[in-house]
């Protein structure tokens, strides 16, 4: 079954229309960037440092408070949307595979952005950036993007969010919205990578994918667990008690993701693979609209 069939395309167009009518300017489309620059709309002040352009000094404030502050203006330009798609092997698990849903969501979000004249770029990553779909704009590019997504496979090594973030900030010239579509199963932790994005003034948005067997495994008895990413195996004897503990640990992990994102104002969506891509995207837009 093809990843992007006619039904997918139909739902994609529907999502584009809905996003323009209901969520205009709230998620991506026609949003102004936080890029400070030479726009006309005042943004905020900052301390003057030698070398700054005197034209932007706020002389009124200097007169009142005897303090040199530089006026900052929001630069009005189209939004750069970066879609960071996890291609590690862990994304290939589940039925349907997390990777398939992640690619559909990537295509949907990219289509919505392209339809609103934003620029999008896709970075496929595992322990670093594996493949790159360069910045582009215009709805016509969606087919190329789909071909790019279809050509991807979840066969990368272990997820390394820090390595991804460091490579990404070097390769992405402009700040913008950085959507991370991953299961976040990074042995070293996902937080460092998101911190790097955050510190480099990107606006991260996390979409965490997992499937039902990960949240509520059923196996009992003697099993040899094999990590599809690292290849590590572990022989264990699973009891009902262990399964209860596992469910607690996994829920704690998901809670930690939402708590972290909430603490730093990062958009966050946690989903299992049981939902369809359109419902997931609509849910994301609704969540953004209520903030």
């Amino acid at each position, binding site marked *: 079954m093809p990843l992007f069939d006619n039904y997918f395309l139909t739902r994609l167009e529907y999502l584009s229309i809905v996003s323009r009518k209901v969520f205009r300017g709230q998620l991506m489309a026609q949003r102004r960037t936080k890029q400070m620059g030479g726009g006309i709309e005042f943004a905020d002040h900052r301390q003057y440092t030698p070398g700054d352009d005197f034209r932007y000094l706020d002389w009124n404030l200097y007169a009142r408070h005897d303090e040199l502050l530089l006026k900052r203006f929001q630069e009005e330009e189209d939004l750069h949307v970066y879609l960071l798609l996890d291609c590690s092997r862990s994304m290939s698990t589940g039925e349907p595979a997390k990777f398939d849903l992640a690619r559909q969501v990537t295509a949907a979000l990219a289509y919505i952005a392209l339809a609103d004249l934003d620029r999008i770029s896709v970075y496929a990553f595992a322990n670093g950036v594996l493949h790159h779909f360069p910045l582009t704009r215009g709805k016509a590019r969606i087919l190329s993007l789909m071909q790019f997504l279809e050509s991807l496979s979840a066969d990368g090594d272990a997820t390394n969010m820090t390595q991804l973030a460091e490579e990404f900030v070097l390769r992405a010239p402009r700040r913008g919205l950085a959507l991370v579509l991953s299961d976040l199963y990074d042995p070293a932790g996902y937080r460092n990578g998101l911190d790097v994005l955050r510190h480099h003034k990107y606006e991260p948005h996390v979409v965490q994918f997992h499937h039902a067997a990960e949240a509520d495994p059923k196996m009992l008895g*003697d099993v040899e667990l094999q990590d599809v990413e690292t290849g590590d195996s572990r022989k264990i004897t699973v009891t009902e008690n262990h399964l209860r503990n596992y469910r607690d640990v996994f829920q704690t992990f998901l809670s930690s993701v939402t708590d972290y994102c909430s603490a730093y104002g990062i958009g966050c969506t946690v989903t299992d693979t049981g939902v369809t891509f359109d419902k997931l995207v609509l849910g994301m837009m609704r969540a953004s609209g209520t903030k």
Partner: protein
Amino acid sequence: MSFSNPAAFLWALLAVPIVIFYFLKIRMRRMPVSTVMFWEQVFDEKQPRSIWRKLRHLASLLLQLLFLTLLVAAVADPFFDSDIREQRRVVVVLDISASMQAPSENGSTRLTSAKSQIHQMIRALKLRDEMALIVAGGQPRVVCGLSNHKRTLQVRLDEIKPTDGPTRVVEAVEIGRRLLAGQKNEEVVVVSDGCFEGAAELAAENEIVWSQVGTPSANVGITRFQVRRSLLDPITYQVLMEVGNFSDEALECSLDMNLDGELLDVIPLKLGPGEIWTEVREETSVRGGVISAQVKWEDDLASDNTARAILPERQRIPVTLVTEGNWFLQRVLEANDIVDLTLTTEVPQTLPPSGVLVLHRSIPAQLPAGNVFVVQPIAATDFWDVAGAVAEPLVDKQDKSSDLMRHVQLDNILMPEALKLIPKVDHKTLVESISGDPLYLQISHDNGNVLVLSVNLDQGDLPLRTAFPIMLTNALSWFGEAKGELIEAMAAGHTRDLQVPSELQKVAAQRSDQLLLTAPDKSQQRIRVVDGRCMIGPLDQTGVWQLSEINSDQTPDADSPVVSAPVLQICCNLSDPTESDLRIRETINPRQELLTSGFGGRPVWFFLLIAALLLTIIEWLLFQRRWVA
């Protein structure tokens, strides 16, 4: 130690697949997961002990192999050689006679006490000991052959029901001895109240282990009860009653007599210690039914307090007398209470069903079909010719075996004249003169029965003698196929070879098991009929038994056959003074050998199975519990 079933060790080959499955099991299932980091968090919290982790699979295998070993050993049925050497074979003879229904010392019946004792004996049987159960009722019967299966013995024992009949313990003991012939360590145990002839002698025998039940008690019982129709008077019946006082004290009681529930008489009785009261009473009644007698006295045995007997009902007989006039003949028939007499001078063309035509002198050339009694035939018919008269005939031969001549004695009767008859068909001469001429003959033909009395009634003193009405009564009874003269009440525990009633003859001819005998407790049994006769009994319940016809549409193996109204009723009474006498003459101390049990009273395989069960529990606690804990 030996094994009863060594071939069972072939089951030990099951160890091979167990070992194979063991190796398959320890090759763990490989399950790919997205990440093991969550599982590591779970298992890092509680690390299993490494030694147990290494050995637990091996321990599981050893437990399973041990479990298999125990099961195989159990199936092989091991036993100790001493079990064979000390094996006992015991035959228990249980008295199930009527007296065993009397109360015992603990309030229950003697039979219940006896069963409790036997249950105790069964529980005390050692592993290889065998026991057989024989019930000594009216017909000794082996209810369970030699068996060491306690459960079977207990079930068979519980199925034994008391009877209202006598006991034949001596014969049952003989059967038991035949069962034990050639065996070692054999014993015959008799469990009885001793209320039968020869109990003391039997108990004194060294080979017999006597187990006494019951305590002496007083009883009054009916030991004989019969009813019969009078042979002289059609409506009179006689009742034979015998009541015994089986106690050591004088007492007063009454005996109520009923006919189908209608009180006939109350007879007060004064009975001395051990007295037997006997009386024959005469009553009159045309109708029949069940006559019952009931002793009104509270005692410990109910089955002999009531006795029943069938009083045959008298069927009225339409009699047509064709005569120019004979006063004696007319009066004799009119005096008979069961005769509906019609006087005429013309011979009717047809007779009513079961009717009798009496022809006096007026003889048609062809006798009508049916029952015809011809007196003094003056003309020839198809059956005889008349060749003059016989003067002063003296009776020479009289067929005393015939029912027609019952209680009839014609030797000394003056008969001046008789007709000389020459029979033309097969006949039976009932009375013959010295000259060889038949005076009274019986002819049976396809269309009926004919009796011919050639004596001239107008002369001589035959009409004045008692033989004359008796002859007529016999003749009427014979024409009516002598229904219901005497239906003898049976004694419980006895059998009777019974002539199947004519109503059932045709049914029985079609299918020999088409008759059903219904007991007083409504239990039923099929009766086989051979040559018009059937064997009834031994009847083990007092009361009224009923013989019925099974609906012919039903298959012979139908569980609840639909039957017609009862055709024949048979009364059954205890009628056994030895059973009614509940006084135990001698107390015999029972030997206690059987009351000691062996090692646990259980076979080795039982303990092996217990061990296997314990192993299963241990295995579950050590391994399986972990999956669900």
